[in-house]
């Protein structure tokens, strides 16, 4: 049976307390926090994390397509899904596509992928959604928005969740938008965009779906609704006849924030983490219209409960010490331009080394088995020339052999922690460490590798892998 084969999610390690935002701008705030992408994360790196978490043991060579849904792609002209496919070390002969410009892009991508699989033109498609929207400083959006990602592997066989039906409407209702030049989303009077827009449109779509498929509110074990804010989300659920306590998937407003195109999908991951065979779930995405998907869970769900989803990441968190740190991460404040801040770059070099840089391929000598990164054409140990195969190192765990905490090295954040990591199965990687407190780094620390943005040069975002303490 076709449908959802696996799921995964990602929430960045850092959280900004609502009280810290209030401290910066005045006023008071209820208890809550938002997930904040580290300075070296963007929608593509978070998406790669969610995808890795979703894939688990799946052979990456089986993936026939990657769809990426976001409103915050790092480039306006240049695909994100091709970058992510490279980071995930997927095959070259696959279809990659970006679903952008709509908060509904995530549920649209899932529907499209399932239709493609149903039509028989792909066996397995990875749908990833991530967003890193910046609310204007001091605005309501600043507190409401959070960063995160979700990923689903959709396949023609062995589905754990199948699609029973789907209903979509398209609407040219403008509630939140950004032109190409806007750093922050714009909006209109809240009374208008909520009462005339969100509440009416989501009601029309969900009730349309229930009419089409002869379903009642009671037929759903779980209801996942996009919501722009906690109050509107609850109003929408109540007005559709859903039970807020027992039925409606709690939104992540006070723990993660509204993660844009990924928001409903992250809630959906939360729902699947608790789901059991036989459960029917409603997944409704909103933005420029609405999608209402009806999904049915089967017994295969038990096989994928070990995936890193929302629960795993909610427990892994560190509070940022203050708003200024967040403002620095998102480049909301100008910083000193230090020595070495502007790096040279060379596109032919990035292209030649793409397998090493993005897929973290090293060499394994056919003669003596030595694994090296970067790839060595002449083996360090047995001196055999050009007798190696490429091996992916990005999915290896490792251990810190030595490290330093560098106050001098150029970097967007100081200090820079450099680690020499010995990888399980062989090979050694010199890389920066991220998502860490410099004080926790020590010889012997267990780490895993994470795909991150390194720096920008000539308008090119440079990505590579870093180590991160295994938690």
């Amino acid at each position, binding site marked *: 049976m076709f449908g959802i084969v696996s799921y995964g999610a990602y929430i960045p390690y850092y959280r900004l307390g609502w009280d810290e935002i209030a401290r910066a701008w005045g006023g008071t705030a209820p208890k809550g926090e938002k997930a904040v992408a580290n300075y070296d994360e963007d929608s593509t790196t978070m998406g790669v994390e969610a995808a890795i978490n979703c894939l688990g043991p799946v052979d990456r060579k089986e993936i026939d397509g990657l769809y990426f849904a976001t409103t915050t792609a790092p480039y306006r002209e240049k695909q994100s899904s091709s970058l992510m496919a490279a980071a995930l070390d997927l095959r070259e002969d696959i279809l990659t596509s970006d679903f952008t410009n709509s908060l509904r892009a995530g549920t649209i991508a899932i529907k499209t992928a399932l239709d493609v699989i149903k039509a028989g033109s792909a066996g397995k498609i990875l749908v990833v959604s991530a967003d890193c929207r910046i609310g204007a400083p001091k605005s309501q959006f600043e507190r409401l928005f959070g960063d995160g990602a979700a990923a689903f592997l959709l396949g023609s066989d062995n589905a754990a969740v199948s699609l029973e039906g789907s209903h979509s409407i398209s609407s040219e209702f403008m509630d939140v938008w950004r032109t190409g030049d806007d750093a922050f989303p714009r909006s209109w009077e809240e009374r208008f965009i909520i009462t005339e827009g969100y509440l009416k449109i989501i009601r029309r779509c969900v009730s349309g779906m229930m009419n089409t498929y002869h379903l009642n509110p009671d037929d759903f074990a779980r209801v996942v609704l996009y919501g722009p804010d906690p109050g509107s989300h609850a109003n929408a659920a109540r007005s559709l006849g859903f039970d807020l306590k027992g039925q409606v998937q709690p939104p992540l407003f006070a723990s993660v924030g509204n993660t844009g195109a990924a928001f409903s999908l992250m809630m959906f991951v939360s729902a699947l983490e608790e789901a059991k065979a036989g459960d029917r779930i409603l997944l409704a995405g909103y933005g420029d219209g609405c999608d209402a998907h009806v999904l049915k869970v089967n017994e295969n769900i038990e096989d994928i409960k070990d995936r890193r989803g929302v629960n795993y990441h909610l427990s892994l968190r560190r509070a940022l010490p203050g708003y200024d740190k967040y403002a620095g991460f998102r480049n909301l404040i100008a910083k000193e331009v230090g020595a070495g801040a502007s790096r040279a770059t060379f596109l032919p070099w990035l292209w030649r080394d793409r397998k090493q840089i993005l897929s973290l391929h090293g060499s394994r000598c056919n003669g003596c088995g030595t694994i090296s990164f970067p790839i060595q054409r002449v083996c*360090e140990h047995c001196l055999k020339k050009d007798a190696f195969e490429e091996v992916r190192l990005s999915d290896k765990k490792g251990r810190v052999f*030595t490290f*330093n905490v560098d106050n*001098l*090295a*150029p970097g967007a954040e100081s*200090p820079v922690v450099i680690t*020499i990591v010995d990888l399980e199965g062989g*090979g050694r990687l010199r890389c920066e460490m991220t998502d860490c407190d410099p004080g926790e780094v020590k010889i012997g620390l267990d780490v895993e590798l994470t795909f991150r943005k390194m*720096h920008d040069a000539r308008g090119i975002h440079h990505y590579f892998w870093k180590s991160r303490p295994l938690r």
Partner: protein
Amino acid sequence: MESIRDKVAIIGMGCTKFGERWDKSANDLIIEAAYEAYEDAGIEPTDIQAAWAGTLQTGSSGVSLAAPLKLKNIPVTRVENMCATGTEALRNALFAVACKAYDLVLVVGFEKLKDLGYAVLGGGYEHPVFNTGYSTPGTYALAATRYFEAYGATKETLAKIAVKNHHNGILHPKAHFRREITVEQAMKAPIIGWPLGLFDCCPRTDGAAAAIICRKEDVRKYKRQDDYILVKGMGIAAGTATGKSRTDYDYLHFDENLSASAQAYEQAGIDNPLNELDLAIVHDCFTITELIIYGDLGFCAADKSKDYVDDGVFTMEGDLPVNTDGGLKAFGHPQGASGLRMVYEVYNQLLGRAGPRQLKSPKLGLTHNLGGAPGVEVLACVGIFGL
């Protein structure tokens, strides 16, 4: 393979005051060092038949030396081998003289770092991604972290090396820093790259040093007195730059040091460097580097280097004084000049010209010049000089 031992003599040397020479250009420094060497050797500039220029980033060809000195249309070659550039320039020159391609040649190493502001990193043709977050202190700190773990050395061990070198630097009028520091000061200094603090790092310095060399049998053609020194051995080893990718590299030693010193000791006929050498001027770009060098060059077992430091073996009064001129730490480190500055100290000590630093009748001295950083790219030069 024939040894270089006793074939080539250094008959004149010069060295500028090292430091922040805001009012002097690279050309000024070259002229200052070269003319001191001319005078010391007792030769005319027009006697020079060929020359070697050693600079890492202050010039790009032999013309950078020919132009200020008006070496008119003779062979002048610029060499570069990272921070070991100075010794590398000397090495190329002395092999050319030994094989009788030339009889009398000039070597000048120079660097004008203080015009550059903060270290210029990341501007050149380097991998666009792999070595982000690089700093030289940070990369040596990777070795310090391991050394502490493996051999029980501490920040205090490193501080004692800095204190020693600062103390020696006071005794040299041309040193960059000439002030005493305390162990406590060194240990409490701001951290540059943990565990290395400010006093664990050598400074960026302007300076130039020069040597004039000829074959041993020709010394009398140019000099009246016997005030020259002989090259006894010269080793160099370039590593494969794979320490950061090889799991069997321990960050506790440099293979390049072992090889370069073995080559030089064999040529010079040295079996026990601690007993046979009278002084050693080594590449203390960081205090941890000097600590590692003690073991690599066979002055002591690597795991005992901390005890040797505690016992004062490498102080001016110890069994083997190391960095009697203050080393890179106090004398400063203009990369192209440093290797020749090291030879300048051995030269002055062996000829009894070291003033307040003078050791008691030394006969054999060593210079050790290192380029690169652990695990990244490493290149070591070891020279042995005697009477």
